[in-house]
């Protein structure tokens, strides 16, 4: 399932995938895979992304039924 919340939050901060990747210390392909729903990140990476984007885990990663 695509993570559109993450993509929207990143775009809201005017960051590219590459910018976010560098800020959290992963490759751009990993951010792309998370946004596309091809890869489930670990809790550590989720927390790092949330901190950079000033969001909570719920706001970015909670899947609503």
């Amino acid at each position: 399932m695509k993570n559109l919340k993450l993509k929207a939050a990143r775009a809201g901060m005017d960051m590219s995938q590459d910018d976010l990747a560098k800020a959290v210390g992963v490759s751009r392909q990993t951010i792309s895979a998370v946004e596309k729903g091809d890869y489930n990140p670990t809790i550590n990476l989720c927390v790092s992304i949330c901190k950079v984007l000033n969001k909570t885990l719920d706001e970015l990663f909670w899947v609503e039924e």
Partner: protein
Amino acid sequence: MSYQAIGIIVGLILGGLITALILKMANTNNMVKTEYDERQQLIRGKAYKIAFWTLSGGLICVSIADMAFPNMHITNYIVLTALFFVALSVMCLYCIINGCYWGLNNNKKTYMIIFWIAGLLNLFNSVMAIIGGYMVVNGELQFPFIGLMCTLFIAIVAGTALICDGRDKNDSDESED
């Protein structure tokens, strides 16, 4: 121990040292070890597994062929090295196709230069061996054939990396969805 064996051992040790030095220069943080993120480590783990089974399967096939055709001397170092290159290619291609070809601290341009130099050096050695007539002696492939396999391996890896690099550029922010 023969002079050829001593030469190979010394060459391997020197090669290892030179490789470590080049890797240190090619990585942005001057470390020999390439750093990977969590997704890349996962992919590399799967790639190692696939390469392991490829190599195991290949060795079993070669062993059976050696038993079935004892006069053909199938189990020689050329065949075993070829199997190693096949397994290595499988591992590298799996990593490349899954977007795990550059580590976090790799300088892409330096690595591409290293690929080109290594490929051309191996190609030069292979061409010289073919011209000199010592690639095949008495119908059997000789040691320089390993250089040709190395050239082929580098060409396959570099070619696939270039194709996947182009694919990933289309997958950037602007062209998504």
